């Protein structure tokens, strides 16, 4: 320990050089005001004795007690004392910081002092209300006041800074969440750049056939928003694009976006002649195995932007499309493009991905008659191979028995997803009902562990499905196995309510696979320096009070990227994200209290301990330079301070010297008071 003491001394001798330390301040003149709070304090603590004791403490110029410090008279008393005694710091020993620090700070700032020169000592919640013994409470209050005075003597003024910001936002991800957020922001007059990695916008919603709880057509529901975003003068839509670099902080991010070539120019009229002549036919990713497309294609008819895309991976360079195109839109010379954008805030709306059930080998996903719900949605879509008919993909026959299996990849510790997706019960019920509607003679079994339909109209939706005659079985299948002696799929499950193990011979099995974080999000979150939850989704700032903020200031989360959500929740969440992202941009500047971290460059040995510690990435270091704190990003948590081996990084008003003075005073007064007793 002697070593650290030496370090401490060393620091003191060098302190004068540190321009940031509050060394050149005028001599502290502290006023102490002890509050009675009626009987709340004075009933237990001898306030007069405390005020008397305080008057002998170092740097105290004035000390008194009063019935209600926060009353108008109390405040006037403080202001008068400050003026009369030339006080430059105040200590009020009364209630909690949260309750009245702002009151008294304002009182002194009205007199022209920096509000941070006020110190609140909580002798009510932390002393009189928790201590029975009057003498002990009084002694404790004295120690607390002594500590407060020591702290006050070391305090420094803290400035507030206005930081101008770039009035533009970037939305990453063009699903319904990204669209909603982009639209809301643009409507506030904020220019938006929307970055979507696929060829078209709309995300998963455009793949769905119907949406619960109304069974509306999702394309119909979302297309006004799609068209609105495409045509909005303040929204620039970049498809086939990804964020490849992010620099800067809230108010001023510099984002690099890389756009892959489409090989078709925007003048494409979507006439489709190129696709007609293209000889290459491949599986359409959009349709999850239920549709085909050409090498030059649009993933689905209503896709926006309404421009074809040439897929060079499959194209055989025959040139037919070039010849046939009436507007010469096809262009093989297009190349990758990199652009940088300056934006004030960023909204991340990269959605989710369906869980891949291959991992649960007992379920034999991969067999053509065992499909996921997203595949079911595509099978039901009128534009795919089956033209919306429900068939067994293996042979095209109408299934007589269908089994829907819930909780596939959710609520499953074995695959590492402990969470309940929360949406699959509803979409499972939706599709089970649609199957029953299309094929009334088909038996539909629905195997579930629990049915989770919280919210208005959701249980009602479940009840309607029950009326259709779906057989609900409470049990999770142990195995789903293609029968080696026939073409059925054998589903083994216990109906736990009748204790009956059974084997259902199904023609078609639909797995309600859960929602997981999208592939590639790890890379994006690293660029954005976002924390991720262990499940892979982006971690929100606070689960209750900040569900649309990310762990990084200026970056907001919208939709399923923060955790599984249905469309209703996604849209509401995206709206919240948009207003949070707009707030600073509408205001035009950031107001920031500068009690942030500062680095004494002379002391710093560039160990980078602070850089790796800072939970919000506020400290950066340039090649060959000492680390620098970004004042805008720093949240004044102080986690970096203990990380520094030489005490070079400090936060204003919570410096080592300030905190140590408080603790030393507390303990030395404790020893004195104890000594005096004996």
């Amino acid at each position, binding site marked *: 320990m002697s070593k650290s003491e030496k370090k401490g001394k060393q620091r003191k001798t060098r302190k004068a050089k540190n321009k940031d330390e509050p060394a050149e301040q005028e001599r502290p003149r502290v006023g102490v005001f002890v509050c009675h709070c009626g009987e709340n304090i004075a009933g237990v603590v001898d306030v007069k004795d405390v005020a008397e004791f305080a008057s002998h403490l170092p740097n105290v110029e004035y000390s008194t007690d009063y019935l209600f410090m926060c009353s108008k008279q109390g405040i006037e008393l403080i202001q008068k004392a400050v003026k009369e005694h030339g006080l430059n710091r105040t200590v009020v020993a009364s209630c909690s910081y949260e309750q009245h620090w702002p009151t008294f700070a304002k009182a002194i700032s009205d007199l022209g002092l920096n509000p941070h020169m006020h110190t609140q000592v909580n002798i009510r919640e932390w002393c009189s209300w928790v201590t029975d013994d009057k003498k002990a409470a009084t002694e404790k209050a004295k120690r607390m006041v002594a500590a407060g005075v020591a702290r006050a003597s070391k305090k420094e003024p803290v400035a507030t800074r206005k930081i101008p910001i770039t009035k533009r936002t970037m939305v990453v991800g063009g699903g319904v969440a990204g669209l909603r957020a982009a639209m809301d922001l643009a409507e506030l007059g904020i220019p938006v750049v929307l970055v979507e990695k696929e060829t078209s916008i709309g995300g998963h919603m455009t793949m769905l056939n119907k949406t619960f709880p109304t069974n509306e057509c999702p394309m119909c529901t979302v297309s006004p928003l799609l068209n609105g975003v495409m045509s909005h003068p303040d929204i620039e839509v970049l498809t086939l694009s990804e964020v490849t670099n992010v620099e800067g902080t809230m108010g001023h991010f510099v984002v690099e976006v890389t756009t892959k070539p489409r090989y078709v120019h925007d003048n494409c009229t979507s006439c489709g002649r190129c696709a007609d002549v293209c000889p290459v036919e491949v599986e359409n990713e959009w349709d999850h195995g239920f549709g085909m497309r050409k090498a030059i294609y649009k993933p689905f008819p209503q896709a926006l932007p309404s421009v074809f895309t040439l897929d060079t991976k499959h194209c055989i360079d025959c040139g037919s499309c070039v010849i046939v195109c009436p507007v010469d839109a096809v262009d093989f010379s297009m190349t990758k493009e990199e652009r940088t954008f300056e934006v004030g805030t960023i909204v991340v709306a990269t959605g989710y991905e369906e869980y891949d059930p291959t991992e649960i*080998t*007992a379920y*034999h996903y991969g067999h053509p008659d065992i499909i996921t719900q997203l595949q079911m949605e595509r099978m039901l879509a009128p534009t795919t191979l089956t033209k919306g008919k429900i068939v067994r993909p293996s042979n095209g026959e109408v299934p007589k028995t269908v089994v829907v299996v819930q909780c596939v990849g959710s609520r499953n510790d074995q695959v590492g997803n402990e969470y309940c997706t929360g949406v699959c019960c509803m979409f499972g019920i939706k599709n089970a009902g649609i199957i029953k509607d299309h094929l009334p003679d088909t038996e539909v079994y629905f195997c579930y562990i629990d049915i989770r339909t919280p919210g208005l109209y959701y249980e009602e939706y479940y009840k309607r499905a029950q009326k259709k005659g779906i057989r609900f079985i409470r049990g999770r299948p142990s*195995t789903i196995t293609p*029968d*080696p*002696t026939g073409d059925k799929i*054998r589903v083994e499950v216990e109906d736990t309510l009748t204790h009956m193990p059974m084997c259902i011979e199904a023609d078609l099995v639909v797995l309600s696979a859960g929602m997981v974080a999208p592939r590639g999000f790890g890379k994006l979150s690293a660029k954005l320096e976002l924390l991720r939850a262990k499940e892979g989704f982006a971690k929100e700032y606070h689960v209750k009070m900040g569900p649309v903020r990310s762990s990084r200031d200026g970056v907001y989360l919208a939709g399923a990227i923060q955790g599984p959500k249905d469309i209703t929740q996604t849209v509401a969440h995206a709206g919240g994200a948009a207003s949070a992202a707009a707030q600073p941009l509408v205001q035009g500047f950031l107001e920031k209290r500068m009690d942030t971290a500062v680095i004494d460059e002379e002391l710093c040995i560039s160990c980078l301990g602070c850089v790796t510690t800072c939970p919000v990435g506020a400290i950066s270091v340039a090649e060959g330079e000492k680390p620098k704190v970004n004042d805008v990003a720093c949240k004044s948590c102080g986690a970096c301070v203990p990380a520094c081996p030489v005490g070079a990084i400090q936060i204003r008003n919570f410096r080592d010297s300030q905190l140590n003075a408080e603790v030393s005073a507390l303990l030395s007064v404790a020893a004195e008071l104890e000594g005096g007793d004996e």
Partner: protein
Amino acid sequence: MAQSYSLFLGCIMPNRYPAIESTTRFVLDKLGIEIKEMERAGCCPAPGVFRSFNKPDWMVAAARNLAIAEANGADLLTVCNGCFGTLFEVNHALKNDEELKKDVNARLADLGYHVEANQEVKHIAQVLGFDIGPYGIRDYLKRKVRLRGAIHYGCHFLRPFHLKQIDDPEDPTILEDYFEALGVELIDYRRKHACCGAGGGVRAGHIEVSLEMLGEKMAAITEVGAEAILDICPFCHLQFDTGQKSLNEKFGTNFNVPVIHISQLTAFAMGLDDIGLEYQTIAPDFKLEAVEL
């Protein structure tokens, strides 16, 4: 240096199906693997019954067997799923729990043994199907077989998965690939990967239930017209062999499908004619058909 193993006999192989033992020895010899005998070894002891009565005692008895193999300085090789289940699990537990090792050694000291758990426990199916492998085995074959076979894996070779990590227990391919290399035409049947019903003390304690489980498997195997059941465990072997007779007596069925252990079939493909099928209860007159290479 030639590979060597401490061959763990267990109970059923030497005491009921000695032909599995003789073919195993034949196969290992042909593969150039040296066998170290495990003098004084006993029952593994069976993971179903004995572990159920008293797990700590079961561990001590198993650790004694492990200690004998360790003294030989060669990894332990089992020919039985049950032995593999017990010895693998105990070896794994001792490897990962120093406290447990101390306790077990304290009790072993009274019996005059000491265990370090510094070796591996292997199953013959792993050695043949993985270490030698379906490609490697070709070099040792004198002939192939013509046989429509139904594989039975048994439980304790692959499960519990998180301990064994040999192959996916829901859809393994290790034996399929291996038996195919011997010329077998494989047929799948319902509930192929289900238990034969023998384990867990059920055969000893509740023979009727054990037979019902077997009957379900047998029905599926006969339905697909398999000519033989291919297994890797003498206990499953016993269940299929004598169990078919019991089923026939009890339920009036007429199951008659010969049962062949991996060592027996491998020995045959390596040129050994007498693989001891004539000593078995079911189909003693069954003759394997050879296909010259």
